[in-house]
């Protein structure tokens, strides 16, 4: 149930733990999460498991880095963001179905380039500081070797359904958003992250 899952995040400790785990780019153990949020390990574990129960986080068991073989101890519990999506709209709205139907038409008609043009124009109109904008739009940007990458794809479900169309549209949108700041967007896809990377134009 989406509303129960989202309501869990109303608790500041749980929200802090969730925010920390999903922004790390690696699985997070109980000690690390507890330290990051500044609570006791047992309290962190209690809340982390609540988040797993609600489907917001996934738990995986494995041995700590660099330990293996006999005497390594039993595997520890690590947490990462769950792949499920939760959305609540009051009153009920369903833009997802509308988007999927429209994407199907655009895809079938071969209008990818028109979708890119529209996305680029939209991006230019809403341009500004790329890092701030991407953060506000839910991309969860992080810097890696001078390149801005994004942990989250705001169009994830639609991009799984129509990857070529939606990823190209997203690239054009980000090109538009970053243009004013003189940043350049390019495709750099890999599983588990947004397929676009941004860098300062003269550094490519």
């Amino acid at each position, binding site marked *: 149930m989406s509303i129960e899952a989202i309501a869990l995040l109303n608790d500041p400790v749980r929200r802090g733990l969730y925010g920390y785990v999903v922004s790390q780019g690696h699985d997070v153990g109980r000690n690390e999460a507890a330290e990051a949020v500044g609570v006791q390990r047992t309290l962190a574990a209690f809340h982390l498991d609540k988040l797993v129960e609600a489907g917001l986080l996934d738990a995986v068991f494995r041995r700590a880095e660099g330990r293996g073989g006999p005497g390594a101890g039993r595997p520890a519990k690590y947490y990462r963001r769950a792949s499920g999506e939760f959305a609540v709209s009051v009153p009920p709205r369903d833009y997802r179905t509308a988007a999927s139907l429209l994407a199907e038409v655009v895809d079938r008609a071969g209008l*990818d380039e028109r979708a890119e043009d529209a996305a680029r124009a939209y991006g230019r109109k809403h341009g500004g500081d790329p890092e701030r904008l991407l953060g506000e739009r839910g991309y969860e940007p992080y810097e890696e070797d001078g390149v801005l990458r994004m942990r989250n794809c705001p169009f994830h479900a639609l991009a799984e359904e129509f990857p070529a169309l939606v990823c190209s549209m997203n690239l054009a949108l980000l090109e538009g958003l970053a243009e004013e700041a003189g940043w350049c967007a390019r495709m750099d896809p890999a599983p588990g992250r947004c397929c676009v990377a941004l860098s300062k134009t003269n550094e490519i």
Partner: protein
Amino acid sequence: MHLAQFNLARLRAPLDDPATEGFTANLDRINHLADASPGFVWRLVEKDDAVFNPFEDEMVIVTMSVWESHQALFDFTYRTTHLEFLRGRRQWFEHTEEQTVVLWWVPEGHRPTVQEGRERLELLRAEGPGPKAFTFRERFEPEPAR
């Protein structure tokens, strides 16, 4: 079971035309990327020519490959630089409202023929996605062995 993929597309301009250069210039790189991708099993190669055209129409190009899983094929197609390559398809190939890519399950070790790929594509076009011929969007799991 392994997943087979067949793609049939018709070029807008001949292979030696400058308009198609973006396609031909990147083919080797993309093919090698496929060969080195996790879960890759096999792809159609004719006398080391990257482009294979078994039909009378010399503008028609087909690709065919076999993968260990749906995820392996998806990740190669959409989560590598192949995605950037795909963006050029509207420029290089004629647009058609018909399906151009078909997927189906083959026994491990099976090497599908172009004829087989073409039949699966025709089945998909005639009857829509089903267990014998389907698409990325509407996929089917292998039928249990009898």
